[in-house]
């Protein structure tokens, strides 16, 4: 790089400045809508009404809005329900997905590719479209307004997990299965004792993708969990659409509360989230 001319040097400097300018602009636009929400969440009613939304709050330790929002939206119940849904759906999805993927990847039976295609086709059908009749089915099964019904529905409509497991199984050598079988293992033993522990990276990926999905799912939760004590985190904010319509200092506090767990998990497992996303996207 020693023989650079003056013009070349200036050109490079300009490119560097432009590069950082666009990065800062991009980050600013990404953060701004959330940041202003944070400002308003710390403002008292009076302060909120008299200052511009872009001014910083006077007191960063003013937590009244958060307390009010927490109580009004019944966030304690919401977090409890979301936790139950999360644990059961993640467990169910991992078990169902890995078992199905094991069978599809290890046994060449009639209908194997048909089943693969049935699941592939299911990815094409947008969830919102089928809810018109899923609602009727849920009604017939008596599963509306039951946490269990929502959990089953969330487990049953996941195809991404199956693809991630399928890909992972296809990278595990079949010789592992064979040597275990020679040692006297059953197929069940092969799956639970030999292969399942090896699936750990895939399980983490599935849990992250599915976890984000469950935490943020609001459409079906709103449709199937309508009674008050069945509120989940994503739907807890709905309370603010009614009588609180424009009390944004409460609303913003509520938004920040629901956003916080996502932010903490994101900061803690950035790497896994990025790689999980990349893995989940190449389902082909």
């Amino acid at each position, binding site marked *: 790089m020693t023989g650079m001319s003056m013009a070349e040097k200036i050109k490079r400097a300009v490119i560097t400045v432009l590069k950082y300018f666009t990065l800062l602009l991009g980050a600013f636009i990404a953060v701004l809508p*959330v940041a202003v929400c944070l400002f308003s969440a710390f403002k008292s009613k009076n302060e909120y009404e008299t200052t511009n939304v872009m001014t910083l709050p006077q007191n960063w330790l003013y937590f009244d809005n958060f307390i009010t929002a927490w109580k009004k939206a019944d966030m304690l119940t919401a977090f409890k329900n979301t936790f139950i849904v999360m644990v059961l759906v993640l467990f169910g999805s991992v078990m169902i997905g890995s078992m199905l993927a094991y069978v599809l990847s290890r046994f060449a039976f009639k209908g194997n590719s048909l089943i693969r295609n049935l699941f592939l086709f299911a990815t094409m059908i947008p969830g*919102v479209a089928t809810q018109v009749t899923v609602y009727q089915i849920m009604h017939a099964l008596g599963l509306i307004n039951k946490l269990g019904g929502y959990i089953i529905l969330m487990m049953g409509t996941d195809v991404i997990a199956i693809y991630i497991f399928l890909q992972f199984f296809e990278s595990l050598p079949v010789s592992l299965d064979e040597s275990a079988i020679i040692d006297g293992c059953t197929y069940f033993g092969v799956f639970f004792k030999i292969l399942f522990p090896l699936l750990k990276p895939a399980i983490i990926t599935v849990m992250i993708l599915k976890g984000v999905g469950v935490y943020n799912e609001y459409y079906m939760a709103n449709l199937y969990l309508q009674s008050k004590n069945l509120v989940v985190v994503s739907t807890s904010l709905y309370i603010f659409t009614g009588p609180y319509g424009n009390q944004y200092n409460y609303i913003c506090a509520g938004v920040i509360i629901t956003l916080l767990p996502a932010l903490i998990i994101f900061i803690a497992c950035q790497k896994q989230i990025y790689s999980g996303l990349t893995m989940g996207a190449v389902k082909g």
Partner: protein
Amino acid sequence: MMEDSMGKASSLKKIFGMGKGQRILVIVTFMFLPLLLLFVFTYLPFLKMFQFSFYDMKYIGKREWVGLQNYIDVFTRDDCFKALKLCFYYMAGAIVQLVIALYFATVLSFKVKGGAFFKGAMFFPSLICGIAVGFIFKFFYTRGFVLDTVLSWLGFAKESLPYWLKDTSINNFSLAATSVWKYMGQNMVLFIGAIMSVDKELYEAAMIDGANAWNKFRYIILPSIKSIVVLNLILSITGSISAFEPPYVITNGTNGTGTYFVIMDRIAHQNQKVGLASAMAIVLLGILILCTIAQKVILNVMFNDKTESYSRKALKKMRKEERLKRKEAREAARA
């Protein structure tokens, strides 16, 4: 432990008669639940939807056969099929989103100060719950609030600014922009993943040859991530046709922002015109399937079907291996 499992295995073998029965048992038990769920929550609704689309009905109560009337309504009513034209706003948004994502991915794939921060900041919106996004942007676009303030700093007169969510000449752009805001980072991360998997030596060689940034992008990066870019571009078409979230959570489809799915949702769950909503869903699914077939054809022509045949190849290999295994087992048994 070992003895225990061996004991179980041999007893199991006795019960199921050497592998074959056990093979069937494992296939059936492991597939029962996923297939049941797939049937009950995906294919049964699909079939029911087809059936319902010929009836005038609510969720509860009597239904009346109306033949093709619902389909005729879908195409003639002012609020149904015509709502599809809104997809062009979201398509435009999706293209803008891909271009921005491609730019930032290229920049962030190489050494940048604070790269992790920029990447994280731009990606995080995709992890925010839709309802929260709705409130955030209602707030953001309110008269005199965030966007108006920022624009007034840039010298725009506040009075000349439109009502971002009410003015029908601009509100669909406002909504499409929120979609870009939320999902750009996700595309960016995907592209970074693809760029990172390109052989590093190529960049070094290019540097030595004195290639500038644009050439590096044009001749090395773009060709090697072409498939994922095209895939995302194509996916954005079906995504735009089924656009739902921004209008649903921000404007609830008011002031001419009701996309096809928002209208369908309203007809199904508020007006309880289940038959008409089913017909709408079937029509849109038809369009989506046509789009997907077109995509497959385009991809096949462009990339020689490398992506799709993966599972089929694996299956073929598996069959061959199983045949071999059985043959070996037979021979072993004979010997």
